[in-house]
């Protein structure tokens, strides 16, 4: 008899709730790794090659902790993968090797990847991997798992957007977060039916709206770009969105699970063409990861009237390091402040907060100066 399988997947932001449901619908046990903390980071960093990029180390630490704590289970470790050109291409084989070397044999690594050209090879390859990932199921179960997970992802993102809208506007500090936490848990544990999820979402959005807050205030706007994983995982980016929101900023993240999936997997062509057009003169070829997106989104943020952009750069990430250099030109040409923040296990909370605070002060001043000029009225002068 085959051993019972438990799934473990990369934990990323709040989306883990949806992935849990996905595997549960397929009838598997699933363990969500802990959010990054000192223990997972220590494991990840000390067992990775030093030159690997930071997200690799983070995830390795998360997987290691799960394996250590459950020696009696057999795991399928889900890992995303692309064929490069950055280090993303090596993630799975390297995990397999490191975990084996550490003496674990109760796991296998399964990975998902996009459909790569040529299509006649890409599509069969995609399905082969998919079957390896989720096993054989009736088509309906498979479709349902994707559908429900998709809905949950969508619902959570709606709640998150609401949260970041409310925090800088709330009257009582912490009230929006409280409402959000409750709403998130309800979606997390909502029955796996589309109708139920929709209902809970609408109810909770309304409830969040009733948090006492001020409407119609114009706040400085900051866009976030950078490497997808770090950007979307609050436990690794030191909750940059929340921190900015609490500083009185309207914050917008450029990458979400939904638009990432849409752009990268479903509407790849349009996305690429759009990107080439926007990035003209800066970067016109694929450098891996999300480097091109970082540049495109910075330009788009400027066009949408944002006051500043923060780039989240995992230490050791090639695409983002390239993007960082180009972004300093974009920043100058388009007259938009860009702050690049590099993250690794030593990133101290203190230096991090100092930088984002100073950045926020800076864009507030810039904004005040602009408003002052346009309307030629005196804004509370210094």
């Amino acid at each position, binding site marked *: 008899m085959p051993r019972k399988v438990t799934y473990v997947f990369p934990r990323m932001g709040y989306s883990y709730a949806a992935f849990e449901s996905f595997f549960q619908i397929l009838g598997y046990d699933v363990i969500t790794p*802990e*959010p990054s*903390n*000192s*223990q997972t980071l220590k494991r990840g960093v000390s067992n990775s090659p030093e030159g690997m990029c930071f997200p690799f180390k983070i995830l390795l630490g998360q997987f290691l902790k799960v394996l250590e704590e459950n020696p009696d289970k057999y795991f399928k470790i889900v890992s995303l993968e692309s064929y490069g050109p950055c280090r993303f291409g090596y993630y799975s084989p390297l995990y397999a090797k490191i975990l084996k070397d550490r003496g674990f044999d109760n796991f296998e690594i399964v990975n998902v990847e996009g459909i790569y050209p040529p299509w006649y090879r890409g599509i069969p390859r995609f399905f082969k991997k998919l079957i390896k990932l989720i096993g054989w199921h009736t088509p309906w179960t498979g479709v349902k798992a994707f559908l429900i997970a998709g809905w949950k992802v969508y619902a959570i993102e709606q709640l998150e957007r609401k949260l970041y809208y409310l925090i*800088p*506007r709330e009257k009582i*500090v*912490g009230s929006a*977060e409280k409402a959000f*936490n409750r709403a998130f848990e309800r979606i997390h544990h909502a029955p796996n039916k589309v109708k139920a999820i929709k209902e809970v979402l609408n109810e909770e959005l309304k409830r969040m709206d009733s948090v006492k807050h*001020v409407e119609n*205030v*114009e*706040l400085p706007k900051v866009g976030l770009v950078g490497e997808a994983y770090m950007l979307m995982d609050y*436990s690794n980016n030191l*909750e940059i969105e929340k*921190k900015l*929101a*609490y*500083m*009185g900023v309207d914050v917008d993240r450029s990458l979400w699970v939904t638009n990432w999936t849409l752009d990268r997997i479903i509407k790849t062509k349009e996305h690429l063409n759009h990107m080439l057009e926007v990035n003209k003169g800066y970067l016109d070829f694929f450098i891996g990861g999300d480097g091109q997106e970082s540049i495109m989104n910075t330009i788009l943020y400027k066009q949408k009237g944002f006051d500043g952009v923060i780039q989240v750069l995992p230490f050791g990430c090639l695409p983002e390091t390239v993007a960082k250099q180009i972004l*300093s030109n974009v920043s100058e040409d388009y007259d938009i*402040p860009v702050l690049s923040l590099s993250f690794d296990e*030593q990133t*101290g*909370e*203190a*230096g991090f*907060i*100092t*930088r984002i*605070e*100073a950045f*926020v*002060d*800076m864009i*507030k*001043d*810039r904004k*005040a*100066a602009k*408003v002052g000029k346009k*309307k030629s*009225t*005196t*804004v*509370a002068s*210094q």
Partner: protein
Amino acid sequence: MAKKMALGIDIGSVTTKVVFVDEDDEVLEGLYLRTKGNPIITIKQGMVEAYETLRKKYGEFEVIAVGTTGSGRQLAGVVVGADMIKNEISAHAYAAIREVPDVSTIFEIGGQDSKIIFIRNGAVVDFAMNTVCAAGTGSFLDHQAERIGISIEDFGDYALRSENPVRIAGRCTVFAESDMIHKQQMGATSEDIIAGLSESLVRNYLNNLARGKELLPTFVFQGGVSENIGIVRAFERAVGHEVIVPKNNKIMGAWGVAMLAKREIELTGRSTNFKGFKITELRHDTRVFYCDGCANNCEVYEVIENGETIAYWGDRCGRWSNRLTSKVNTHRNEGYSSVNSVIPANHAKDDAR
């Protein structure tokens, strides 16, 4: 009538600055102290010392606003009761702009970190900060002075006397140090070595922080290391332009935040949170622990005053900080106060229309 003053405190890991300003933002008393191990004790010593001097000079006085900055700003803010807790970049820039209104580039080198701030039309437009590498900071110079066996105060004069500064290689302290020893053994004079060291420090600083950025005059150089005339000259040579060392150069951060706090109080009409000089007699302890409430495993900081906890921070969910209802500026309140300051500013705009 009692004289009105604002207090600014800048706590770094190596030095602590305590400043009192009058109603015209002029510095009445400014202290530059070593943060010896315990930052809270250092602040208290500074406050007591300043209090006595000020009492002698001005008799009765009243503190109307308090600001804190530096890496220990939050702790200091909680202990003294601050009205404004500001990052060091904004505080330093504010003071520099007050002193040299047409400044475009600020070099700041302190005991343990260094920063560069770019200003256009009196507003910060860009900045960079180095907190990881000690190569370009005061601690490094102190250490080298000790090694060569001269006092750090004489460092600058030595550098000025040098006729051929030796070139000291080094992206990092370790290399710089070994190269220096080597040059010493080769018979270079202390003067030339010190001058070489000054140039290497400036080169490192500019390489790290100003890479690819346009350096425009007017230049201002501040922070503890700006006392050192050798480094000032090295900067001037590197940028090919005069570099101004403003008055109050060593205490700019504390001065800036004192002014900012005062402005905040004036704009909002609130009264100060200052707890009074009595805090110098209270006992304060700090504690760091890992919360095991959930997998986040937050590193939580606790500040205890006379046996009673007055602040927590570092807890992501508010499990600890929500237990306290005090008005002190913990991280969360800090966020709140900036939200507050945005809203009145908007109302102000509405009125103006």
